[in-house]
């Protein structure tokens, strides 16, 4: 088991090293695309704590992404706080919002849970939409005062890489700790877990808060990257999109959702150049995954490698 973790560790080091080399390729476009993918990867990874590890399907995860984004933008611009305070404050706020919503949602299971998270997600959207004075309403919050030291495209790339790598490392530790293992136990059989003395409600609430907090980190990065936050970020289709990223990559693997985010986002950028009807393409991709690839890309890769190892 230790050997397996060692392999994961070295693979991650290699991946980070490769990402560090991206700016050296000299393509501004590639740097921007990689920054966006890293942000979405963190967003998808955060959702997986809730879905993959605790089996709670949230359809309102975009809310915490948007809260992190709006809060960071407002603290930086309206209040002119320095980044070192703005970003942590935004992340804490996203976590607190998740704690509030989670308090209501974890009392319910399955279908009710999904519907309630969606309703809360749309509440955040409605507030962002109507509270013009603070959020800019449907014009969006534009002109975020990004600190100068990360104002440049390359500097922001390295900043994002650092934040995302640290967050991913932290998430990995959380998911592979006793807490993460207990979450899986609750996912597999809530009743048995409670019989051995696990406080399942508290555990699920913690998972909800962890997921919301890390979504907040992704959101605040997104706000600074775009120098703006828009209400669409809180819309339920955004929650659906991040769910699809998670599913596409593979629910029951830690890094699967990051892969899903990379593939889906690249597809989106590519397809948007040819047609405005991205949703119908996305819907079709989703139908294909559901019908033919229940375990996502990671599951497909495992299946293929199993086939090969059987042959040799």
């Amino acid at each position: 088991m230790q050997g397996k973790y060692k392999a994961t560790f070295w693979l991650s080091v290699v991946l980070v090293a490769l990402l560090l080399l991206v700016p050296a390729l000299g393509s501004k476009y590639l740097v921007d695309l990689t920054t966006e993918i890293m942000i979405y990867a963190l967003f998808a990874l955060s959702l997986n704590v809730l879905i993959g590890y605790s089996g709670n399907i949230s359809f309102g995860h975009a809310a915490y992404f948007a809260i992190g984004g709006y809060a960071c933008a407002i603290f930086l611009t309206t209040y002119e706080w320095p980044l070192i305070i703005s970003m942590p404050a935004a992340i804490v706020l996203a976590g607190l919002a998740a704690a509030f919503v989670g308090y209501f949602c974890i009392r319910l299971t399955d279908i009710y849970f999904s519907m309630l998270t969606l309703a809360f997600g749309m509440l955040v959207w409605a507030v962002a939409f109507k509270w013009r004075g603070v959020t800019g309403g449907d014009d969006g919050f534009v002109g975020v005062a990004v600190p100068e030291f990360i104002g440049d495209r390359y500097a922001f790339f390295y900043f994002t890489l650092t934040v995302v790598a640290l967050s991913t490392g932290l998430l990995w530790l959380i998911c592979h700790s006793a807490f993460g293992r207990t979450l899986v136990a609750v996912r597999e059989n809530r009743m048995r877990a409670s019989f051995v003395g696990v406080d399942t409600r508290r555990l699920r609430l913690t998972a909800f808060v962890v997921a919301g907090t890390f979504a907040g980190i992704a959101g605040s990065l997104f706000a600074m990257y775009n120098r703006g936050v828009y209400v669409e970020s809180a819309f339920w289709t955004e929650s659906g999109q991040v769910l699809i990223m998670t599913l596409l990559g593979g629910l029951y693997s830690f890094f699967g959702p990051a892969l899903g985010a990379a593939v889906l986002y690249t597809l989106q950028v590519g397809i948007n150049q040819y047609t405005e009807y991205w949703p119908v393409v996305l819907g079709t991709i989703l139908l294909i995954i559901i019908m033919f690839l229940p375990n996502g890309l990671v599951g497909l890769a495992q299946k293929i490698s199993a086939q090969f190892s059987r042959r040799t």
Partner: protein
Amino acid sequence: MPPIEGKTMSMLANPTFLFYQFMNSISLGMNIFIIAAGLSLILGVLRVINFAHGAFFMVGAYVCWSTVTYLDGATGSFWLGVAAAAVVLGVVAFVIERGLLHYLYGREHLTQLLFTFAIVLVVGDLAKMIWGTDQYNVPYPHGLSGAVNFGFALYPAYPLLLCAIGVVVAVGMWLVLSKTRWGRIIRAATQDREMLSALGMNVPLVYTGVFVIGSALAGLGGALAAPRVAVSPGMDATIIIECFIVVIIGGLGSLWGSFLGALALGFVTMFGTVIFPDWELVLAYVLMLGILLWRPWGLFGVSEEESH
């Protein structure tokens, strides 16, 4: 939130205005109920959250508009449009259920959820390809563009008819569900589908039937809403959230729960618009939260632990 203005207070003290808002609330509530009842029925029997329900509602409104436009607004064309909307959505639902959803019942809850989300994306975009992004208006049907005189106030005939249709749908569904053989089978399917199939019932057929009827209700609701709202893309998202609020308030799968929930949402929306303009949707959530604190499973809902 903005403070209540003096003008608002005097408006609320005006009995004619109060009556008007009261009727508007019921009319809106009944319109939402017709749609939410379909969602709730599907939820109760299939235990699938149909996100596409809102998209079906939107397509229903478009179909009604197309029928009225095609027939040049001839007498009765609106009602033909309403019927066409219900039939078209019934057929669409039949194809989706038999062709795809049918294979997913044994799969995880997430799979089914994402499946209906995929349908939202596909149907929404197809609607955009067919009808474009323009905003359409459907006129009130012939003979219903006037107002009814209540003696002390006038009220438009069409919204009044909506109230009546809502009650008819509620009572009709209740009669079918509680008094007929098919209703008993549907209720049995919400309780224990395995036992039902062990007794020799064709459960897949029940599922198909419920999905078709529920979706036809969404189409019907969309067509009936068409003269009341601007028919445009994006109307699917608003209604699906409203339906969710109704079903959460009322309790999953409960007909009268949805009825009460829809009425409550109608009142909160209509009076909220007057008292806290722009914040009516937020008020609806406050209502939902209050009820959930008191009864986590909704007004008429049963705890999931108890029901299994």
